[in-house]
């Protein structure tokens, strides 16, 4: 088991290292094959090790850093939470690798792509499996780097490279807080082991826990694109579609949720931190859903919807249900990667056109893509009995079950967001599939390799509810039991559960009907203030540009021109100039004429004689 677990982590690393070293030097299909094989093998080993997760499995490979009282091992901890997450990561990654093999088939830089993709899977698994926070941080930064490299994969366009850099830096701002939290936790506990920290979290004072919780929240916000660090995700869509599906939908953006779930025993001690998490989640969910309504590019719609759904997961953690968060994380991973890969197929069908206003009629171009994409969309919209329906409902029900005004408000905003979600999902569906084709591009059909991996995802997405089917529907809440969270669940009366489900179905229908009324026939939307406001993501980019980027550049310029060139170099060169000036003055005395020198000699002589005369007189 230990070997299998180790292999799970190391196989993608080995694949990535092999491809980055030799990918350019071997025949063309080899990098692709190696990469897919590594991830699939990793999935299988993970599956093999899965049974060991129940009682928890620890593997310490070697001691990474050991100094004084500080020790960080490269150690893995395989518990139910890690197991379910690792299984999802490797599973989804396998399918996406297969899809990418089709999608990137003609790209000359394939080997760089697959090397980074494999390294990404490794880094993500490091986050998931790490038994201490430092190794988790390794994965945390590692996914950031791979995401950076993959967003800017088509580097010749400056916008792509800029988007990659933006993602790296914005997430790194979040990482600062995470780092401080890690340092502080070490100071408090003398160890970074996640188990120990969770076990001893109760020893801490309320203020400490609250600050730690908020620091972790900010760290999670960066990676998971939550307010206020969310601006990078929409731009990250510049990357190739499989990257968006893997990194910016299924795995990396949910790392923040995973972090909070992992340290839930610590975070949950502080009501303030929990409230903050819930607020961040629900506000982001609402914000991103509203932005998704205004987007024109298919992938940006999905990006904002991802942000919004991750907001739901934060909300779930914030209202105290890790199992609900993980449940939504899983179903979302399935249907959102399905949606992204479907979007990749649609973009191909539309001849590399991203704008949904220039699409339409895609249903006629490819039936399978239509069916698969719709499967994803109804999950997203919360179609009754689909996976997304159950998971979202569980989050809302948990919020509702608290019963106090704060949580009811959160519930209300959540429900409103659900309505908007349903609306923009069907807006997307109508614009892309209904009516006739509005563009001029000649599309080409996606290859089989791009279609087949979507099928299992669609099945998992639609049937995902089964893994945590509530008792009301005859299920046993398997996921909650597995995560050992069963006892924490709030029990609502049957009556209110029915009420909640009815509400959920109602908002789904409202969204559907509104979208039907507005988008059944395509009308070129008028340019409006609201539209532009939503399209630009509430102008947050411009705001940050004004209040952060530009002042920072002014600061740099001030330090450089004023501080370095003005003061520091000024003093240095000032010294130089002073001495040069004196030297020039002294130089006047040596004018090259003997008579001048002799005069000096005579004067000097006179002074000396005079001195002696005066002395003898005195």
């Amino acid at each position, binding site marked *: 088991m230990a070997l299998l677990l180790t292999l799970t982590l190391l196989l993608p690393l080995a694949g990535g290292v092999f491809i*980055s070293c030799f990918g*350019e030097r071997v025949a063309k299909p080899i990098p692709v094959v190696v990469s897919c094989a590594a991830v699939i093998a990793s999935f299988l080993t993970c599956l093999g090790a899965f049974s060991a997760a129940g009682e928890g499995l620890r593997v310490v490979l*070697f*001691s*990474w*850093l*050991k*100094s*004084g*009282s*500080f020790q960080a091992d490269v150690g893995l901890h395989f518990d139910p939470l890690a197991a379910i997450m690792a299984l999802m990561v490797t599973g989804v990654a396998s399918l996406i690798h297969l899809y990418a093999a089709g999608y990137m088939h003609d790209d000359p830089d394939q080997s*760089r792509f697959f090397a980074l993709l494999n390294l990404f899977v490794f880094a993500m698994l490091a986050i998931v499996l790490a038994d201490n926070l*430092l190794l988790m*941080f*390794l994965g*945390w*930064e*590692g996914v950031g*780097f791979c995401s*950076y*490299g993959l967003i*800017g994969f088509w*580097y*010749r366009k*400056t916008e792509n*490279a*800029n988007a*990659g*850099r933006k993602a*790296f*830096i914005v997430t*790194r*701002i979040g990482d*600062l807080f995470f*780092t*401080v939290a890690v*340092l*502080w936790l*070490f*100071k408090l506990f003398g160890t970074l082991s996640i188990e120990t920290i969770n076990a001893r979290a109760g020893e801490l004072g309320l203020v400490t826990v609250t600050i730690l919780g908020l620091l972790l929240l900010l760290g999670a916000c960066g990676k998971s694109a939550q307010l206020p660090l969310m601006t990078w995700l929409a731009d990250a869509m510049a990357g190739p579609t499989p990257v968006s599906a893997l990194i910016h939908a299924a795995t990396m953006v949910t790392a923040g949720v995973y972090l909070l779930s992992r340290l839930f025993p610590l975070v949950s001690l502080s009501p303030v931190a929990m409230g903050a998490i819930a607020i961040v989640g629900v506000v982001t969910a609402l914000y991103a859903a509203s932005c998704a309504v205004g987007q024109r590019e298919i992938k940006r719609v999905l990006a904002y919807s991802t942000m919004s759904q991750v907001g739901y997961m934060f909300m779930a953690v914030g209202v105290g249900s890790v199992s609900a968060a993980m449940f939504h994380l899983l179903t979302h991973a399935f249907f959102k990667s399905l949606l992204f890969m479907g979007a990749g197929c649609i973009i191909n069908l539309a001849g590399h056109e991203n704008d949904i206003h220039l699409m339409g009629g895609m249903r006629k171009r490819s039936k399978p893509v239509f069916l698969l994409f719709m499967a994803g969309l109804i999950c997203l919209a919360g179609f009754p009995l689909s996976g997304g329906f159950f998971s979202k409902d569980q989050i809302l029900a948990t919020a509702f079950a608290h019963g106090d005004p704060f949580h009811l408000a959160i519930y209300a905003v959540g429900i409103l967001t659900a309505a908007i979600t349903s609306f923009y999902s069907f807006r997307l569906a109508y614009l892309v599939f209904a009516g006739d084709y509005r563009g001029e591009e000649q599309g080409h059909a996606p290859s089989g390799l791009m279609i087949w991996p979507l099928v299992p995802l669609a099945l998992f997405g639609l049937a995902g509810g089964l893994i945590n089917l509530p008792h009301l529907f005859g299920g046993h809440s398997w996921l909650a039991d597995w995560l050992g969270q069963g006892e924490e669940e709030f029990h609502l009366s049957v009556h209110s559960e029915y009420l909640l489900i009815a509400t959920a179905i109602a908002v789904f229908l409202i969204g559907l009907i509104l979208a039907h009324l507005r988008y059944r026939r395509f009308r070129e939307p008028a340019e409006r203030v609201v539209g532009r406001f939503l399209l630009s993501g509430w102008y947050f980019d411009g705001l940050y540009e004004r209040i952060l980027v530009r002042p920072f*550049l002014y*600061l*740099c*310029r001030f*330090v*450089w021109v004023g*501080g*370095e060139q003005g*003061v*520091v*170099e000024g003093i*240095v060169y000032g010294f130089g100039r002073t001495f040069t000036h004196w030297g020039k003055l002294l130089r006047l005395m040596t004018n090259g004429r003997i008579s001048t020198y002799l005069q000096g000699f005579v004067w000097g002589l006179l002074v000396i004689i005079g001195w002696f005369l005066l002395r003898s007189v005195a």
Partner: protein
Amino acid sequence: MNAATPFQFPLLSLMLWLPVLGAVLCLVCYKKPDLPRWVALITTALVFLLSLVAISAEPAASGWRLLEDCSWIPSLGIRYSLGMDGISLLLVILTTFLQLVAIVISWRQDKFPVLFFPLLLILETGIIGVFIALDLVLFYLFWELMLIPMFFLIGVWGHEKRIQAAVKFFFFTLTGSLCLLIAVISLYLLHGQQTGDYSFALDALKQTDLTATQELIFYLCFMAAFAVKVPIFPFHSWLPDAHAEAPVAGTVDLAGLLLKTGVYGMIRFAFPLFPHAAEKSLPVLAVLGIIGLFYAAWIANLQRDIKRIVAYSSISHLGLVLIGLAAWNQIAWEGSMLLMINHGITTAAVFIAIALFHRRTGTRDIEKLGGLWQSQPNLSAFFLLFCMASLGLPGLANFAGEILILIGTFTSHSAWAILAVGGVLFSALYTLRMVQGTIWGPSCEPFERQDLLASEWLVLIPLAILVVVLGCYPQPLLEVLRDPVSLLLQGGHP
């Protein structure tokens, strides 16, 4: 100092003087322009092997792994005394390794190779000497010996504004060194008057009784020399010029080694000799370190010359090292030592990659460069790896040192560590800007795909392996550092 063994193989002396011998040989065979580089290569390779042999020496109870001590100028009490503990060992290996790299990478140096290679070899002697000298006069000699070859390397083989840079470098370091000289002589006289034993030995001078004021003045004089070399803000302004104008071998030595001599001088001489003054100065050092960390990072963000960006990044990283020293505990110090070594390797590697870009494109201007991945995929990949190591990506070299410094600092001085964490963000900003301007974006000349030369592979591969290995498994280094660091923290060797 025990001279228990009657005959000890003089490994340290051999390592120290072999480069000088090589330099003489180079000069002897001046008629054949190819011979000097071979002589230099063989010499540095031998020295590198010798330094690896030195690993096998087990540390004695006193902490020293190797010691050599004999009388040199008895009338003045100057002894020829060399000693190597774990810190020196690692720094010497770093020196010999980087020197080897520097020789290989400047293989095609066609401008006066007869002088270029001997100067590099003499520089190597100077640096090794600084890392192992235990007698203050000897230390001072080697300290100055580093200066002269470096001056000529920058001034003769540098880029456009080389003369100005060389002179600036010379004056800065010389001013600092003169303060050091004055302090050394005064300390010697004072100690002689007190005890009647006129000696320049480090251990003897530690016993001198000093009033608080005297101690502070001596400490400041010592620090003047070391602060210029490190460099500590605000004595850094020689560094960007010198780094930017020096030839590639000079830059490798400057960034990789010379800066470390400053830190080494502090921990080996300034702190143990004047412990009370040092203790009082720690907050000042930390503040200067933090200022340097931010200040240099902000300036780096606006530079157009990529060599200057990396030069400022060195100032920034050394600021972090300084914060680690100021935290004054085991974890932070081990982190600082580790970061010094890792920074030596990564920065040297980045500079080498930049030099190779420069050879191919003819420019270092970030506005003119771009999209080099297209024509130089291999070199760009190395460059990306080194840059990521430099910005502190976990699993690569610099991170191990940085995180230890942060952890160590946080346990004793949380506020400093929190500020330092902020500084780490800015290193990402300028590094990514540099990466962006160099290898991403629209392509610049040359457009055809070019592969690396064999000699370039030979240099880049070991560097890349080191960058990864030191990031993933720095444990052996930390083992070597543990005892010497704890001895130094307790006030030096017994």
